[in-house]
């Protein structure tokens, strides 16, 4: 099956899944006692019943659940994710505004964890049982047990509070008026700690998986055949690495969902105005359309990332995808 078929299949298959996500989440959130109007009233300190009724009609909250679901789906089909009470803006606008920050965070964290993690995993797996392996395995287990947000706090204590090397919160220094390269450097400095907090945990994961994968490949028959041909040890390690790398790539897709969830807490710790933090803000203010929008977009993001990963895998593994029998 080639790339086009794979894409088409996946996107078609994603539709029922997304449908279940939308409908399921909609009903779940609608089951909450109290609605957006109640939340609004809490923040404004109450109003008379006429105003309350008018608000309900205006926001369409006086109709039945099924009717509201229908309205929502209809709006969805037109790219309208609803109106956020908290921000007084369309949900889609807010989401799209916050998304790039989180994508930056996730991309950097994934790059860090995957590249460094697999590199260290290769070092550990080149000689299973060796001293490098033992040190790396122990360290990675301890690292993997750390809660991401706690790592963030500890790093913040060390690097922001004590050493004052790095900024503590936000994505850039507000009202600093920096542009171009200086602004990029500023944003990068603000991102170092959050990326480290998010990435180090997954680094440990990829290290362990890579190491285990290599140990597995070392046991395979063809490695013995390679040794029987007098190849240099470095060449053989190259073979082992390539074979162990493939399963690691599938993990990228699976871990993206987890990382998106992890970004919620990290963004909270470092006050980063991102997509993940949006979820927390939506929960705090009972902003149902916003929360629904966040979950939906999150699901779409996960599906797209998984699709990209699968395509990459098919491209890298000659046993799948293009290339038919000679």
């Amino acid at each position, binding site marked *: 099956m080639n790339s086009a078929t794979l894409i088409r299949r996946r996107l078609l298959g994603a539709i*029922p*899944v*997304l449908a*279940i*996500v939308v409908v*399921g*989440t909609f009903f*779940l*959130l609608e*089951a*909450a006692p109290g609605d957006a109007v109640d939340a609004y009233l809490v923040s404004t300190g109450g109003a008379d019943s006429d105003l309350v009724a008018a608000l309900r009609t205006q926001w369409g909250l006086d109709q039945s659940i099924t009717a509201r679901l229908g309205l929502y789906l209809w709006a969805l089909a037109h790219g309208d994710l609803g109106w956020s009470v908290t921000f007084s803006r369309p949900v889609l606008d807010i989401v799209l505004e916050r998304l790039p920050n989180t994508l930056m965070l996730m991309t950097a964290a994934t790059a860090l964890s995957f590249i460094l993690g697999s590199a260290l995993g290769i070092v550990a797996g080149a000689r299973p049982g060796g001293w490098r392996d033992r040190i790396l395995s122990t360290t990675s*287990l*301890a690292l*993997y*047990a*750390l*809660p*991401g*947000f*706690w790592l963030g*706090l*500890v790093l*913040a*204590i060390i690097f922001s*509070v004590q050493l004052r090397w790095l900024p503590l919160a936000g994505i850039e220094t507000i009202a600093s008026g920096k542009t171009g390269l200086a602004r990029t450097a500023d944003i990068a400095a603000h991102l170092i700690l959050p990326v480290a907090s998010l990435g180090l945990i997954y680094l440990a994961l990829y290290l362990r998986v890579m190491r285990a994968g290599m140990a597995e490949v070392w046991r395979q028959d063809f490695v013995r055949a390679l040794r029987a041909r007098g190849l240099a040890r470095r060449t053989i390690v190259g073979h082992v690495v390539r074979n162990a790398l493939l399963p690691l790539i599938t993990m990228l897709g699976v871990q993206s*969902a*987890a990382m*998106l*969830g*992890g970004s*919620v*807490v990290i963004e*909270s*710790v470092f006050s980063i105005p991102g997509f993940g933090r949006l*979820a*927390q803000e*939506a*929960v*705090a203010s*009972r902003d149902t359309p916003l*929360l629904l929008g*966040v*979950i939906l977009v*999150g*699901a779409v993001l*996960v*599906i797209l990332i998984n699709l990209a990963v699968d395509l990459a895998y098919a491209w890298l593994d000659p046993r799948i995808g293009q290339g038919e029998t000679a």
Partner: protein
Amino acid sequence: MKLVRRLVATPEGIAGVVLLGLLGLAALLAPVLFPRDPLSIAGPAMLPPFRNWSLPLGTDRLGRDVLAGIVHGARTSLAVGLTAATAALTVGAIIGTAAGFAGGLIDELLMRITDAFQTVPGFLLALALVSVVGPSLTVVVLAIAMGAWPGPARVARAEVLSLRERDFVAAARTIGMRPLEIAYREILPNALPPVLALSSVIVAAAILIEAALSFLGLGDPNRVTWGGMLAEGRTVLRAAPSLSIFPGIALVLAVLGVYLVGEGTVEAAAMKRRFL
């Protein structure tokens, strides 16, 4: 029991059992060791650690005993971890077995539902549930289980698919066992081991998710939680960094203990195969 003995023979197993044992003991004995309500004021506010023998880890912003908080927090974390994992494994095993055994449309439908739960990041699901029902221990457990059950479901289904074709299933059919009976009395027990292999990962994840939820203020407000303590500590990060460190260490030790026991069990099971 032989497995347990072998488990303790591995270095990982010993370390893990010791860690978890200590924490479990602390959790069980919390009301004995620290009979006073850990949320009550125990001394002067912001007392630094290692100054006062009766308050070894100091006090927080409101004067609450940090050590008491950590010991009582162990109850919450371990309880949530174990309950959520059990729920996730049970639900996942049942659904996975049903899907694998029934096949056809039921399988398709159940797998789509599993996909849906896996596509939404588990933490977001938990947030949604907590926002709907409100923060309480039960909700936290449910929320974690909702995100964790797809994993065991897939493993169970894969196992069932391969077991379905085996002889002992055909034999059961021949003697007239009803499909439901076959599925849950013959197949599920044999499909369990790989599912149970996931248990340590799920328990660890559950402990971490509960901590994260509490950190965000979405945990049970009536209980002491390590995550809640960390959230408190964050407000005085510069003045009293130790408040942000100790609960975290407790978390790390708990999760580490769970992982070590898990790794030790894998080692122990592998040892058994080698001798066979």
